[in-house]
């Protein structure tokens, strides 16, 4: 690897890290504002103009709070839980293609940290490790509410990951690759996968809500039944990490949804404008972020609309609706593919 490329990668890694933290930070602000507006309130508006400094104030508050590790808790695991959660949340951004590529001095720099040829699998693997963050935290707290929250989280995530995987299988059958960059490049213009895989998209979206523990699937931290769920015993910045990781996860899953089903950095109607490669790439990044922000908004919109599922309803939906539907989706995709390859003669 050339030095220039190495430097570019280092800068890009730092940029991705910083941007995901920044967006997660302002997601908390957006969440509160959107919640307020949907309830005919104004929301935080005291810290800075329009309350724009509210996330900073919250961060400072989190750091200044007393740090309590319960005496009956397993200390090492208690610290490991939120660390793991935060680590996995930050790791998923690596394979997401944030933009096409930049041409600097005749050299092509791809706007993606690394184009692993099994990008989707990598994301799934890392997200699955994230469950351990919740499990370990809930277990180490040595508190029945935490443990119940953790058990709920893990069973929910395992149930919905199956349907999510099936939805992805249908997509992969269609695209024939696991590399996220390839998948995005195949959706050039407005050939977005959502038009070919509407059912798959719907399944993926619902499962993404369940994977990020957002309403209507926020049973792991269901306040009305479990005090705070898996983070009942947590305080100070460890609690902050758990809450923050949720927002990073939300950002990343929005990015994944936009990448897989909504064409990533592709935008319609620009190929005819005759713009240079670099301008197009930068426009693409902007467009990609617009898509991401829309999905983050969707996450919040749903949260402030729909009440939480009951646990049996959650499991019914997961096993009796989502998984059969996703299998049907895989079969249908297979049939259509076979038909298009001319293997059927009616």
């Amino acid at each position, binding site marked *: 690897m050339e030095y220039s490329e190495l430097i570019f990668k280092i800068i890009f890694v730092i940029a991705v890290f910083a941007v995901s933290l920044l967006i997660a930070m302002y997601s908390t602000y957006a969440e509160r504002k*959107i919640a307020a*507006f*949907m*309830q*005919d*309130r*104004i929301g935080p*508006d005291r810290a800075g103009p329009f309350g724009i400094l509210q996330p900073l104030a919250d961060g400072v508050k989190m750091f200044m709070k007393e740090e309590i590790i319960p005496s009956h808790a397993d200390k090492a695991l208690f610290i490991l839980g939120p660390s793991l959660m935060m680590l996995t949340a930050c790791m998923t951004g690596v394979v997401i293609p944030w933009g096409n590529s930049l041409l600097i001095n005749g050299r092509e720099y791809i706007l993606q940290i690394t184009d692993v040829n099994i990008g989707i699998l990598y994301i799934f693997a890392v997200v699955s490790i994230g469950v351990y963050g919740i499990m370990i935290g809930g277990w180490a707290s040595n508190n029945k509410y935490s443990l119940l929250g953790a058990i709920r989280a893990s069973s929910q995530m395992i149930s919905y990951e199956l349907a999510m995987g099936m939805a992805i299988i249908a997509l992969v059958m269609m695209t024939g690759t696991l590399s996220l960059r390839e998948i995005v490049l195949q959706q050039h213009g407005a050939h977005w996968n959502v038009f070919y895989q509407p059912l798959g998209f*719907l399944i993926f979206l619902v499962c993404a809500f369940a994977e990020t523990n957002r309403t209507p699937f926020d049973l792991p931290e269901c306040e009305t039944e479990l005090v705070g769920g898996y983070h009942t015993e947590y305080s100070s910045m460890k609690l902050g990490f758990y809450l923050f990781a949720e927002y990073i996860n939300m950002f990343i899953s929005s990015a994944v949804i936009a990448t897989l089903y909504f064409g990533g950095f592709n935008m319609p109607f620009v190929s005819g404008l005759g713009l240079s490669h670099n301008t197009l790439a930068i426009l693409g990044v902007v467009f990609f972020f617009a898509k991401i922000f829309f999905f983050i908004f969707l996450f919040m*919109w*749903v949260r*402030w*609309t*729909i009440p939480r599922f009951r646990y049996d309803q959650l499991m019914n939906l997961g096993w009796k609706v989502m998984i059969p539907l996703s299998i049907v989706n895989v079969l249908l995709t297979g049939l259509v593919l076979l038909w298009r390859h001319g293997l059927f003669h009616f």
Partner: protein
Amino acid sequence: MQSLTNRSKVVVNKKMSFMEKLYLPEIAKGMMITLKHLFKKKVTIKYPEQKRPVAPVWRGWHVLKRDELGRENCTACGLCAVACPAEAITMTAAERKPGEENLYREEKYASVYEINMLRCIFCGLCEEACPKEAIFLTDRNVPVDLLRDDFIFGKDKLVEGIEPEKRIDVSVRARAHRQIES
């Protein structure tokens, strides 16, 4: 029973139709409702800057009145403190010295008069108990502050000024009350 709003609905325990069982159309409907609220006018009143309109009989921040010569009416009899159901009022009485006749109307006065505004329930019983027409509740909001100690209001915040422009009008509520009674 007559409903308070026109938005009440009779709950029927009927089976869900197929469209309702699909969830998604119903969820979309609900999301449209929340989206509508996103652009609705907000009901919040940003308190210290904006104030809620109040009725003419509204009771707020107390004032200790002076008479027309600028002498304090209060004689520290303590009836207000006795009448106060929240036990918010405390006072220390003192004797008027020769030469202070222009400050206090009678021989006895309150050297310290404190109302804890966090305890006060603004019931107005102190005003009713007062035989000297010294204490009144006015239509002013108690200003916001950050420390609990700052809500114990002493004479500096309660007694009105001597100058005519610093006098505080308490006739609004009295007039409103008279109107209600008549």
